[in-house]
């Protein structure tokens, strides 16, 4: 599940496509998309919730690690007493089965880890992939061969195996979310590197890159000024995919026991320990799953929107009944079409 868009790169390079960008236009188009605004708002809210976790926890009057033995039915495997997983005025989203820890606070703190892993790992991936992809596209035969080889190795490595092994190698005191960022970031960048390389190879052929070479700048200068901006659209699309994929990866790693170390909560870790509670305490499963879903959706919708905003052709291609302007135009046209 790698090249989300890798193979249609040559298309994205057509100069016409890139013509009408410019930050202002992009911003304006972005603002015109309601879904983008909603997605951005949701992400903003999530970040706020994550940052404000201690505050909100204090507001609720709970913390992430206190056990509430009285709120669970010990004889029945520790299922929360009360309806809907023990939702009450004290525990807004109920409590965790077995331990009775407050789910609201755990979800909030979980957001910190999950968002950090998602965003952090994606940043590392992008950094590595763009550097490697660009260097492979611009380097000489030797460099290209070497980097392509490395990329192929990374693609061919089963991430989870290396995650399992690596997390065991690293000293236990190393903060786990940071480790996850590094592991995911440093292993799972092969697909993106390919996309970048393909795109850069396409862009390289364009005359404006030749023109920049004639200006006498170094290869690196050319890459930075002329190629990098052109990579934004495909990289962004891929990033949206990586972000949600990384969240799911974090969850999968928790499932295999190499995720974030409890008692630190993360959505993935909550979800993986919640899977068996499907029937007896559905809320416990639904909450982290929902958070995961919402975050993924928001990232993807926003990513898509940014990409579309970066691609001026998209407007005339898709824009059926999207913006207000369009709708007005339709009315005027009336029955004509």
């Amino acid at each position, binding site marked *: 599940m790698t090249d989300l868009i890798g193979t249609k790169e040559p298309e994205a390079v057509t100069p016409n496509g890139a013509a009408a960008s410019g930050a202002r236009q992009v911003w304006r188009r972005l603002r015109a998309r309601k879904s983008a605004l909603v997605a951005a708002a949701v992400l903003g809210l999530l970040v706020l919730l994550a940052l404000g976790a201690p505050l909100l926890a204090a507001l609720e009057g709970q913390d992430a*690690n206190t056990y509430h*033995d009285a709120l669970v039915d010990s004889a029945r495997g520790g*299922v929360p007493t009360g309806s809907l997983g023990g939702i009450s005025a004290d525990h807004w989203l109920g409590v965790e089965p077995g*331990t009775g820890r407050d789910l609201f606070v755990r979800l909030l703190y979980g957001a910190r880890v999950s968002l950090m892993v998602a965003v952090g790992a994606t940043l590392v991936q992008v950094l590595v992939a763009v550097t490697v992809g660009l260097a492979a596209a611009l380097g000489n035969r030797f460099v290209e061969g070497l980097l392509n080889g490395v990329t192929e190795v990374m693609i061919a490595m089963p991430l989870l195996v290396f995650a399992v092994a690596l997390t065991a190698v690293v000293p*236990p005191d190393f903060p786990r979310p940071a480790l996850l960022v590094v592991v995911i970031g440093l292993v799972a960048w092969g697909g993106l590197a390919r996309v970048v390389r393909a795109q850069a190879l396409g862009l390289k052929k364009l005359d404006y890159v030749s023109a920049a070479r004639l200006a006498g700048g170094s290869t690196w200068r050319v890459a930075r000024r002329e190629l990098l901006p052109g990579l934004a659209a495909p990289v962004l699309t891929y990033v949206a995919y990586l972000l949600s994929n990384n969240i799911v990866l974090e969850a999968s790693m928790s499932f295999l*026991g190499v995720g974030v170390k*409890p*008692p630190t909560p993360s959505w993935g870790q909550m979800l993986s320990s919640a899977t068996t509670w499907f029937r*007896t305490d559905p809320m416990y499963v639904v909450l982290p799953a929902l958070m995961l879903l919402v975050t993924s959706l928001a990232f993807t919708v926003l990513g898509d929107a940014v990409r579309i905003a970066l691609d001026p052709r998209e407007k005339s291609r898709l824009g059926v009944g999207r913006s207000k302007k369009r709708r007005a135009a339709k009315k005027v046209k009336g029955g004509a079409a």
Partner: protein
Amino acid sequence: GPEKSGDSKGSGADGAPQKGGTLTVLNRQPQKQFDPARLYTSGGGNVPSLVFRTLTTRHRANGAEGTKVVPDLATDTGRPSDDAKTWTFTLKDGLKYEDGSPITTADIKYGIERSFAPELSGGAPYLRDWLVGGENYQGIYKEKKGLDSIETPDAKTIVFHLRKPEGDFPYVATQTQFAPVPKAKDTGAKYAEHPVSSGPYKVVKNVNDGEHLTLDRNPNWSEETDKERHAYPDTIDVQAGLNSAVINQRLSTGQGADAAAITTDNNLGPAELAQVTGDKKLASRVGTGHFGYTNYLAFNPKAKPFDNPKVRQAIAYAINRTSVVNAAGGSSLAEPATTFLPNQKSFGYTPYDHFPAGATGNPEKAKELLKEAGYENGLEITLTHSTAQDFETSPEIATAIQAALKQAGITVKLQGLEFNDYDEKVHKLSTQPDLFLAHWGADWPSGGPFLAPIFDGRQIVKDASNYNTAQLDDSKVNDEIDAINKLTDHAEAAKRWGALDRTVGEQALTVPLFHPVYKRLYGKDVKNVVISDWTGVLDISQVSVK
């Protein structure tokens, strides 16, 4: 306590058990090993016990009755002499392998000798430690002349010479290393592919590394010579490598062949327990088992601040066992423990509670002790646990302890290790953490294997796995262990083990937390469910599906 083990008596569908049908076994762990030399029989060994008979075996009965050792291939449970340093067994008449050839004591001797070969590592350490000349023996393949300490004066008699008195030898003789292996059929490391059966079933199919086994009747097994095994089903179909939740779901749904299914290694988790207790029909299909097992908090009393007994006692006082039990799956799956020995008679269980913490801990008393120890301003310690979600050394239990100790002014830093990492560090003297979650289970239901590895000073191991994590080397304790080992009367020995546990307990070298309880679901067509307190698992040799 033990009274609960009566739950399992009811047992499945109505009517007397009958022969026939196919029993399905849904297991988590594949039976990777099927060589009798490599099996470590403690607690498990259920499927192999259908194929391998041994000199003695455990009594297949419900509850405490099932902790007794009974003869299997031998006519009795062994005759001690020379202060229990020499043990003699005689074989029953008419014992045959699956191919009809007779079973001889030479085959048993051979089987034991091959179990010393490094190619066939993995078994329990007792024979190596106990048999004269055992510790350096490299196995029959390298040292063809064999062990002099095992004598077979004739085909029916076998005599073992031990280095020191071991009253529990009959228990050790239940292990699969005591299964006969015909020398002519031995293919060394490949023997596991076609082990020769002496039991009621033989392996006809073993694919995917023990994930799918099919066992058929062994026509040369005779019920007359085997009072313990029943062999009701015609065929036994073992499917392993399954997800725990899936196994329980399949057992409760009972679709098709799953109606006649059991599991020998999968418990009900807390979530499933909650579901099962809400459903009368399902609840009637749950067997409860106990296995001599204690989960505890281990100190390194040689390290600060745990070198101060007051600190250890303070921690013992502060523990909130209700939280711990909840973290371990709730009161149906764990019973609070204050003794190191399991709460079963055969272990010599003697109730005591030296540092009464009540149900939820006694932080006041703990604070008092800390003050006496010079930590009136609180204390900061690190607790090591594993990150495995096993309800044993898992993070939830560590967090429960962290929360309880906080009440007593002790700040606990948690250090979670990957399971392999944890296992390696904890059992190596040089890396052993100062405070960690530990557990111990018995290889047979007696105080000896439970206390000796943990508290016997001569069992402190430097270069391999060490279990005496407190590094206790107290001559009084050592001498008492030697003395009890001489006893061949199990009841007498049990009493002394109990007393020893109580005395050692005063030193607060460990804080017992809980004894696990196992709940096992079985299919709706399964009859004659027997769960002994020896293993706590559903006895596969007793089950019928017709």
